[in-house]
């Protein structure tokens, strides 16, 4: 492998962009294909499939057997609401390999003491979210119950094509949320992508149990490989080898 290929690869990874290294194991020659260039590559069908599943492995190419090393960004979990559920959801997310960030402009909630080892941003979503690079490899969870905080954050998450978007609230609360978001011009297809009521139905009662239900739903979405759902973003590929 050439050093400049490795440097480019590391730069792509640092910028949270997917890339694939194709190595001809017989000749030792390797090349890098950035995610943005997959569509025009001669191996586009194969590369697109690998990018979707996130699986590295051997494959046949016109030039012989190649090894494809698939690099997809580590998943991140962004939560609005430094609330009771978040106190359990954040450490569970960390255990599952997510970079966790909590956003809550209410400084009384968003204290570092309540959330050790997690990035906590005490700002409004319009200021806090854009620098986070929220993308297809991000799960977004709205937990504040406050439309002033959750609504703009949900809109941002939808625009950034997060692989999972969930919002806390009963069916009634969500009904009001849907009406508000529609008024702001979001389409039915967009709104249908929001998981609400949030979490798998496991009969969760306590905040910690609700956190488990949410994380289970995120995991199910993450691993729903090959699902062709026109209304929702395809599940992203999270590299199993990257942990």
């Amino acid at each position, binding site marked *: *492998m*050439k*050093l400049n290929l*490795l*440097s480019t*690869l*590391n730069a792509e*990874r640092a910028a949270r962009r997917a890339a694939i290294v194709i*190595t001809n*194991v017989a000749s*030792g020659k*390797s090349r890098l294909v950035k995610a943005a260039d997959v569509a025009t590559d001669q191996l586009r069908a194969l590369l697109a499939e690998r990018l979707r599943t996130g*699986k*590295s*492995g*051997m494959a046949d190419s016109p030039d012989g057997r190649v*090894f494809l*090393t*698939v*690099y997809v960004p*580590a998943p991140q979990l962004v939560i609005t609401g430094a609330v009771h559920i978040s106190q359990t959801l954040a450490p569970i997310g960390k255990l599952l390999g997510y970079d966790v960030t909590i956003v809550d402009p209410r400084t009384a909630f968003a204290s570092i003491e309540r959330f050790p080892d997690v990035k906590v941003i005490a700002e409004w979503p319009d200021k806090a979210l854009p620098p986070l690079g929220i993308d297809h490899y991000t799960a977004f969870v709205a937990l504040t119950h406050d439309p002033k905080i959750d609504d703009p954050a949900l809109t941002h998450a939808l625009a950034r094509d997060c692989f999972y978007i969930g919002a806390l609230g009963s069916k009634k609360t969500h009904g009001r949320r849907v009406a508000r978001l529609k008024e702001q011009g979001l389409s039915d297809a967009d709104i249908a992508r929001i998981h609400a009521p949030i979490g798998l139905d496991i009969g969760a009662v306590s905040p910690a149990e609700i956190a488990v239900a949410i994380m289970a739903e995120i995991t199910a979405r993450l691993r729903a490989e090959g699902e062709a759902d026109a209304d929702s973003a395809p599940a992203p590929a999270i*590299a*199993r*080898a*990257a*942990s």
Partner: protein
Amino acid sequence: MAYFKPYSPLAIRAKHSEAHMLATNDDILKAAEDWRKGGREVALATVVETWGSAPRPVGSNLVIDGEGNFLGSVSGGCVEGAVVTEALDVIDSGQPKMLEFGVADETAWKVGLSCGGTIRVYVEKVE
């Protein structure tokens, strides 16, 4: 996993090596780049195929320098020593190598995977 009494020198060593084993591929590839830019000779080992209960998934990396220092893992500790030895060869020759390790393959390799899996590891020089 072996159990070590807290605070014994063994426990500290175990923790140290575990930290290296658990380094993410991010750190490993960054280390490979930094080591090479710092003037060290570097080889990169990658798990390219696995059969049975292989301990590390396809795509796992181990980076090795010319002095035999390494970071990452391709097997969780079973065959790293042999991979490092081969990597030094690859650094010398510049020619990539495909290595195969498995319990059933005693004739080719003395080092086997205790877990019963077989892995194929590609070792290349970073130039």
